[in-house]
Structures are given as C-alpha cells and as structure tokens.
C-alpha cells in the first residue's frame, strides 16, 4: 500500500518517517530531488512515496535546520541537469539519522520484549 508521509521540522525530537527516509536516502551520497524520491521508493520497497510537492518542503526544513546542504560541485556536464540542485547530508544530518536509528532500535527492542514480532509480508 502506498502512502504519503507528513513532514515536520526536524530537531532533537524524533524525526517523522518522511524526514528520516530523506536523510537515509542521502546517507550514501549526494543526490538531486528526483533521485531522493526514487531512493526512498526503493528503500521502502514502494511502501513510501514522496511526491514533489512534499519533498521540497522537507528539503527546505532540513536545509534550515542544517541537516542537509546544497552542494556546489556538480556531475559531468553530460550527466548534469542544470535545473536540478544536489543535496548533501551534513554531519548534523548524519548525527540526527544516527540518533533516530538508535531510538527506533530501542523502541523495537521494547516491542520484542513484549513478544511482538514482525509479521511475514504477504505481498
């Protein structure tokens, strides 16, 4: 089932799933907006789908919070699209993603201690 995520301003508080997925998408390298959308789609096996209308609102917040920055270096001209900007995960962004990962793992451990298990996916 495809669903849209709500965005919220990232801070020391827990990140929304949409924000977290964008940070994860940038974790292995700089990307432009469309590539981020594709990566999120791939990482979640199609369960999450960021639209253009949502993504750039998230990116603006991440830029404002310093978790992401625009990069000036661009790929080779034959691979470049001048309309696109490339985004880079900063150290703060990395730390925020790390903190969120640890928080989610701790939550998962609590759930498992209560005998909750992952269900096998049927589709």
């Amino acid at each position, binding site marked *: 089932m*495809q669903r*849209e995520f*709500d*965005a919220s301003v990232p801070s020391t508080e827990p990140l929304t799933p949409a924000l977290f997925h964008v940070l994860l998408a940038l974790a292995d390298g700089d990307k*432009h*907006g*469309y590539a981020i*959308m594709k990566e999120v789609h791939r990482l979640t096996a199609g369960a999450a*789908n*960021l*639209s*253009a*209308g*949502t*993504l*750039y*609102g998230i*990116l*603006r917040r991440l830029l404002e919070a310093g978790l992401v920055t625009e990069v000036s270096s661009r790929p080779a001209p034959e691979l470049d*699209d001048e*309309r*696109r*900007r490339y985004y880079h995960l900063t150290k703060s962004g990395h730390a925020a993603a790390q903190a969120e990962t640890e928080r989610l793992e701790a939550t998962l451990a609590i759930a498992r201690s209560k005998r909750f298990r992952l269900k096998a996916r049927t589709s």
Partner: protein
Amino acid sequence: MSPARSNRVLQFFLRLLPADFRQEYGREIESDFRHQAREAGATPGGAARLWRSTIAGIVRTAPSEHFRILRQDLGYAWRMMRRSPGYSFAVIFILALGLGANTAIFSAVDGVLLRPLPYPGGDRLVTLTQGAPLAGAADMRFSVDDINDYRQQTHTLEDLVEYHNMQFDLLGQGDPRRVNTGVVSHNFFDALGVKPLYGRTFVAADDSIGAPAVLVLSYEFWKRDFGGDPGIVGRTFRMNDRIHTVIGVLPPMPQYPDQNDLYMPVSACPFRSAPAFIANRKARMMTVFGHLRPGVTLAQSEQELKTIAARLRTSYPAAYPASADFSTHADLVKASLTNPARPTLLLLLATSGLMLFIVCANVANLNLTRHVRRERELAVRAALGAGRARLLRQMITESALLSLIGCGLGVMMAKAALPLLAGFAARFTPRATEITLNIDVLAFSLGLALLAGLFFGALPALASGRDLAEPLRAVGGRTATGRSGRFRGLLVGAQVAFAFLLLAGAGLLLRSFYNLTQVNPGFRSDHVVSMLVQLNFARYATNDKVVQFNRRLLQEVQRNPAVLSAATASTFPLNAVRPRIAAFEIQGRQRGPNEPAPTFDFHSVSPGYFKTMGIAMLAGRQFSPDDALNTPDVVIINRSMQDRYWPHHDAIGHSISTDGKNWAMIVGIVDNVKSYGLDKPPGDELYASNAQSPSNSSSLLVQTRGDPAAVVPQLTAAVHQIDPDQPVAKIRTLESLRDDSLAPARLTGTLLGLLALLALAITAAGIGGVLGLEVAQRTKEIGIRMTLGARRSDVIGGIVRQGLTPVAFGLAAGCGVAIVSTNALQGILFRVEPRDPAVLALVALALLSAAAVACLGPVRRAVSVDPMRTLRLE
C-alpha cells in the same frame, strides 16, 4: 492529458505555495513531476495516483510554508513597531477611532435592521389592521366577532392572536401604581415562540370563565421593580378588585406594539371579558397578530384579507357600513419595528464608513512617509534576493498587525460606547435591546481591519514603482519619487473630499436642529408639570364621579400658593398619549357619497387649560364652570380647523356632531399647537369641556411660580387626599418633554458633528504631515534657491501652493459630490435645503482654514533653512 495542459494544471496548484518557495523550488518540482509522470504513465492508474499524491503534497505543504513566512513577518513587524513607537502609537490610535466607530454603529445596524426578530418565524410575523378610511379611521381595531371570523376564514395566516393595551392599578406593593398591561389570547406567547424565563405563560385554562386571575411580568418590569427576584412567581397583587397571581416572567425581548409592564389573559380584563362587549360586533378594541403560512407571500395574504373583508361587509352591513369602506391589510412586524430607525442608522453607518476611509487614507499617507525613510532598507533586501511579492507581503503583514491591534482597541471603545448608542437607538425602536457586540459584529470589525491593513500596507509598494533597487543608485541619500508624491497628493485630496461630505452632512443636521429649537410650539413649556391620573374604571364608573374627582382635584391643587394655574386634560402636546381621532359632520353641510369624513383630534379639557398651557385664545370664549353635563354641549376648535372648514367666515356659532344626533356649538377658537412634534404640522384639533365629555384618563397640568419639580410631592398628596388608592404616573415637566422631542435631532447632529470634527482633525494632521515630509525632502533645493536669490515670500508661496493644491481639488470634488448626495438627507432635515449654500460655504471655509493652519509648521521649517549650511553639507 497533453504535457502543456498538464503543466498548466501543475502551475495552478503550485500557486498555493508562497511566491518565494515557488521561486526557489518551482523548476525542480516541475522537472521531477515530469519524470514521475513519464514513469507513471506506463502503469494502469499511475497517472491518477501521481496527480493525487502531488496535489495532496502541495496542499499539505502550503499551509505550513505560509505559516512559517507569517511567523517571520510578524516577528519582523513587531520589531519595527517597537523601533518606531511614535508612528505605531499614532497609527493604532487613529485606526482604533475609525474602526471603533464603525464597530459600534454596525452593532446597532446589525441588532436593529439585519438580525431576524428574536421569535421563531419572526420574519413571517404580521399585524393586521382594519381601517375605515371613508370614516376617517385608519385603524378601527377588531372586535371579538371580527377576530373569530378572520380566524375561521383565513387560509394564508395561522396562529391569529389578539392583543390590546390598558392601564390598570397594581396594588399590594408599596404605593399604588399604574401599570401598562398587555391583554392577550392565551396562546399569544406560544404563537410568538416565546418561552418564559421563570414559571410559565398562559394556557387555555387561564382563559376559561371563572379561572383564577394570573399575570406574566415583562423582563424590564421584573428587573426594575422587583430587583430581578426569581421568587416573584407565586406572588399576588390586587388589580381591578381581584387577586392576581404572578405565574411567570418573560425573557428580554423587544415588545411590540407597546412596552408593557405585565400581561394578562383576556378573561382577566374586565372590559374584554364583559358579555356585552363580546357580543357586540362593533365593539372594536383589539389588534391582531399572526404568521404567514409557509410558502405564502404577503401579497397573497393581502388579497385574501380583502376577500374576507368584502364577505363581512355583505354579511353584516350594519357593522361594516358601505359609507366607511371597511378593509383589512397585513404588515410585517419586522418592518414596523425597524423602519423608524432605518434612515438614521444608515446615515450613521455611511458617516462612519466615510470616516474610516479618511482614517485609512491618513494612515496610508503616514505609511508612505515612513516608506520613503525605509526605501534604502527595502532596496538592500531586494538586492539580496527578496522578491517584490515577498516585500509586499511583509509590508502588508506589518500594516495588518497595526490594524489588528487598532481593531482590538477600537472594539473596546465600541463596547464602552454601546450603552449610549443603545439608549440613542431606543428612541426609534424597541429593538435597541438587541444591540450587542456579537460574533457577526466582531467578524465585520476584523474584516474591516484586515481590509484597512491591506489598503495602507500595499499602497507604498504601488507608489514606489517596480524598481526596488533604484534608491541604491540614487545619489545623496533619501529620494521621493514623483509617483510617490502624486499618491500622497491624491490621498490628501481624497481625505479632504470625504471630510467635506462629513462636515456638510453634520452642518445640515445641526442647522436643522437649530431650526427646530426656534420653532414656536404654540404653548408654554416652562414652569409646567404634568402627571397622569387614570381613574379606576370600577370605582369611577359614572360621568358624575369622574367630573367630581377632577373638580375636587383642581380645587385642592389651586390652594397651593406655588401654583399659578392648573387644569386637567385627556392629553396635551408632545405627550405619549395620542388624542382620539373622531370623524364629524358640520351642521348644514352634506358630504359626497365617496368623500371621506373629516376628522379632528379630540381633547377633553378643563376650564383653565388654555391659560395653564399658554395657548392663545383667538376668538370667542374659554370653557367655564357653567359648562356642565346638563347644559348644551360646547366646543373650541383650533385655527387650522377654522381655516380648513370655515375659510371665509368665523366658525363661532356653528355646530358639529360625531354621531349625527348630538350637536355641539363652537364657542371659541384657539391658536395651533405642535402636538405631534416640533417638526410636524399642527392637526385639526377640537377641545371639549371635560365637564361635558369626562374622561377616566386625564393628565393634571400645573403652572408653577418656581421650579415645577418642587411641587410634585404636594400634587401627589392632593390626589391621595381625595383617593388614597389612586396612583399617579408619568410625572414630567413640559420642558423635559420638549427636550425629549428635540433629542433625536440633537443627538444625531451631535454624533455626526463629533465624527466630522474628528475627521477634520485627522485630515488637517494628514495635510501637515505630508507637507512636512515634502519640505524635509526639498531642504537642499530650498537652500540652493535661496542662495541663488529666491525671496522668502517665493519659498512660502511655493510651499503653500504645494500644500493647498490637493486641498483645492479635494474641496471641489467634495463639494460636487455633496451637492448630489445630500439629497439623501431630505427626509430628516427641517427647514433646510440639502444644498444650503451657507452650510457648504462654511464647510469649505473650515477645511481651507484647517489646511492653512496645517501648512504653518512646514512653512516655518522651510523659511528657517540656512542656505549656507545646506551648501556646506552638500
């Protein structure tokens, strides 16, 4: 969908996002969407899903982005306000005055004119009137048989209920009191949909013969006379020699057609419940209310009422003589309640609207002035990437913040002024009790504040031209573009024009009021006091007893050395009690078959009435103690009646009759008096001696040597000496009645005058402020001109010309519009033409003078420029 169309639709939705967000990310969003669209097109339903998710994303993102910008702008606006406290305070205060006035007056317009009546189905509530125009009676009222017939025969009306008003003595609580009593059908309040505040209203059993007598109190009476005591239900009082029990209290509501103290069912009224009255089709006393049935129009009901009236005329010719031309029509109660107040309230609303425009124009000019000082700051921000739309949005936010704070202050001012305004409106309509600051009024106020903020916030941006960076390229600091200066001049001219309209309207009304004060009312109003003495119908059931009481009362009163003269009368000028209108015939004259019967206003008075009231005797004699029940009837008429019916000779010696059998001789002619209002023409009036035509309801009128109020306790004692159970009511001096009759004109004129003066002050301040800025900006130019030999007089002339040119245009425009629009005031002016040249000239002079005074400061500043110092600074 084609790519071009798809792009247009996407652009449409992108407009939901803030302009700078679109500027920043718009191209990327479009590009990414196109890529997604190519991929989505390959799967079934993919395109639709993509559109849904894209639009949903934009719709979700837009509010938070707008809110983020709003937070930024509000923070910036707050800092700017604190940096310019003088400007901020001036703007907030001026806006508060304008918005407060509009809020207060709109609350009156809303409560009286716009809101539906506070009864379910109030918009369909009608009152029926049965008239006999050819008998000279516009309102004959209805008899019991009339009401039953209309109730049975109508298909367009439902819930027909009856009402009439009487005054009775209420005993059992302190001094005996005369109370205004509404006598109603048992289902009267059910038909109106009125639920009691305490207890219950009437039921069918209350109206049956022999049922215990019950009362329902009005809210105002209960609060005023019983302190709002919830324990009032169950208390008993004596009225009409019966014990009455209070069964309920009404909620606050506009009472129509009379302000009653209490209500009783028809079975409790000794007159209405008398078998002879019930059986007499011609015994007409009641008013009828009803509702239009759903889907029925007033016109349809009118048609049916005509048909029923015609049927009754045919069935009962004796009760509905053809010569009288009986007919019945219906009127919406809402119109009757609101029409008297409509012209004045709409005039006040127009006035406050004009004043608000002047306020906004003035604030816009202040803002333009301030904008000139901020041009470099804005230019720097534009150069750093802020778009024009972004800067405009921020300026509007700053203005809206000031406007909203001004609105809050204005609403508080309006709340404080509301009791005064309601008191003013109460003179015109009982709906004044519904004037409140409700959610509709607050929404109106908020809407006005936002519009005002938009107006004076956007104006500097419109005035500054498209190139925001231009000030950075300008040499020598501050600039004032010609465009901005033209806008300022335009605003000054507009303020002057609107101020002219306001001042002209106020001037006309005040002149009208002055003319009213100069009217000779035809009677003496100083040193005369009146009190209503309504005799109990049961204890004073015969004419003899009434005549004896009145005679004894006058004897007692005239013993008082402070009393110069005394009289009793059924009514007197400017009194709330209207005289009875009677049709008559003149002995020896025949009336044509379709000619309406002549009528007069009937007064029953004692000898000494004309002396006490200072009404001039023009011919013949006054009433004397010899005019008695057993002597031939005599009457006195006024000059109006003499001129109308005996234009060529004296009426004295002629006889008139109201029933064709009993004739009364005219023995005297008195001058006209202004009975219905100082601005109303006198009617035809006939006076009979109250020894020959006694009335249970009379007013005692006493002319005193000194302060009339000082003798009131003695007069009351004189009444109680004759009858300890006899209440007195409506104690007023005639001076206060005359003041009351002038009050609406005085209050309206004063209110408009105050608003107009305020508008004048604001306009003058605006002229001075704008001219001051112009002088400040031209300091260098003035210094250079003086160095080159220009005289001070040339400089002064230039400044004054610059200041007064927009004023002159404004005067011309204002005068032109005033000449056309003041016709709307025709209906409320008294002996003043709407285009009165003296008023218009005075207004023009006042505005020119105010403008000239406003120019003094800038002129002084201009002539104090030191040319050498200016050159050194360059």
